[in-house]
């Protein structure tokens, strides 16, 4: 078990300068409400100038993880070794705790699709993607994990449910899990008749001991084909059902490393700090936090 980092947020370029400046001067609100940050490395790799100047003090003072979006681990295209080479160098120089991406694909025949698309839940896909994961984590040389993605369509030919697919991929690749609780809820809402029950079942069917970090984010309801569906937008506060599911996860295994994602309609930094602090305190001051019957290595 790698992680016990506490509360974190994804570092957005819209508040990078403000974050860096407040960190350098020891702003009490920033320092007291945050333990670590995550960044999308593609946004920063190879960047110099003011972006590098703003990022440097953050990398020195705060635990950092990378959450990339371009790996396309499930694609039938060859792995992008140029990207992986730059990612490895950046990760080493930044001293990251770990690198994560998504259990999905985003390119076909060299065409970038600009979204994270779902894999079919088949044995063939399990073996294919597990082999690529092993190659990537061996190459990167830092702890590596994959996120359970949101998906709006179950690909044809499924031979197993999503939880089993995810579990098998993690087992065969010996890979860590970034569990996105919002994605669990969004997928269960969109693909089952009883989302709460389906989400609870999902949490009990995946290998929680592989979790490196937990994501929460906001989603947006839309009407699609006459039905209400949820879009994984990262553009709103975390919904109450997702917070409920997070509490449920915390009962199963204390959450020690939590990250709030906000990608669109990004509010002021202080609002994000207040939201993640509120979510964290809700967990920390819950009775489950003091649950000591689980061995240390079983905690998230």
């Amino acid at each position, binding site marked *: 078990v790698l992680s016990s980092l506490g509360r974190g947020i994804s570092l957005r370029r819209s508040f990078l300068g403000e974050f860096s400046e407040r960190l350098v001067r020891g702003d009490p609100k920033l320092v007291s409400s945050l333990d670590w940050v995550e960044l999308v490395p593609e946004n920063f790799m190879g960047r110099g100038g003011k972006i590098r100047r703003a990022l440097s003090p953050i990398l020195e003072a705060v635990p950092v993880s990378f959450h990339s979006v371009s790996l396309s681990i499930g694609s039938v295209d060859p792995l*992008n070794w140029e990207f992986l080479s730059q990612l490895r160098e950046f990760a080493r120089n930044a001293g990251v705790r770990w690198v994560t991406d998504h259990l999905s694909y985003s390119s*076909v025949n060299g065409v970038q699709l*600009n*979204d994270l698309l779902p894999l079919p839940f088949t044995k063939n896909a399990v073996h294919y993607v597990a082999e690529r994961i092993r190659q990537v984590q061996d190459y990167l040389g830092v702890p590596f994990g994959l996120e359970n993605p949101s998906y709006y369509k179950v690909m044809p030919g499924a031979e197993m449910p999503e939880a089993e697919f995810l579990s098998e991929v993690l087992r065969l690749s010996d890979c860590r899990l970034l569990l996105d609780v919002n994605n669990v809820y969004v997928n269960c809402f969109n693909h089952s008749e009883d989302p709460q029950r389906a989400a609870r079942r999902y949490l009990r069917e995946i290998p929680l001991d592989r979790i490196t970090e937990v994501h929460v984010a906001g989603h947006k309801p839309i009407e699609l084909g006459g039905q209400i*569906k949820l879009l994984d937008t990262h553009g709103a506060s975390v919904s109450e059902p997702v917070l409920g599911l997070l509490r449920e996860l915390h009962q199963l295994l204390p959450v020690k490393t939590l990250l709030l994602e906000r990608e669109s309609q*990004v509010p002021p930094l202080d609002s994000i700090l207040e939201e993640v602090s509120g979510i964290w305190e809700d967990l920390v001051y819950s009775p489950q936090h003091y649950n000591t019957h689980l061995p240390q290595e079983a905690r998230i």
Partner: protein
Amino acid sequence: LRELQERMLQTIFGPLPPTDPALLLYRESIHSSLQETLDLLYSVTRGAYEKTCQNPPWEELGERFISQNWPRDIRLNWAFKNFSEWLPAEPWMKELADYEWSRVF
């Protein structure tokens, strides 16, 4: 797996909209995202080469876009890399923008 992914590519970029609402969602989401990205790339490039173009100053436009919505397309990420320094000196950028624009739309 390859057949499935190639079908998705065709679904997203092909001429006919899918009948499955879920796949239509992917198509619209990706088109919208790509259009935003390529629109900027195109505007930036055209703005850099065609001085009569009525775009906002391209550097300001690019910074604003990048701060709000960095594209996931790694190839376009590379295209934006350090653009404020070398974009005007790279004539192939306009060709790339024209090509991308015609290919996707």
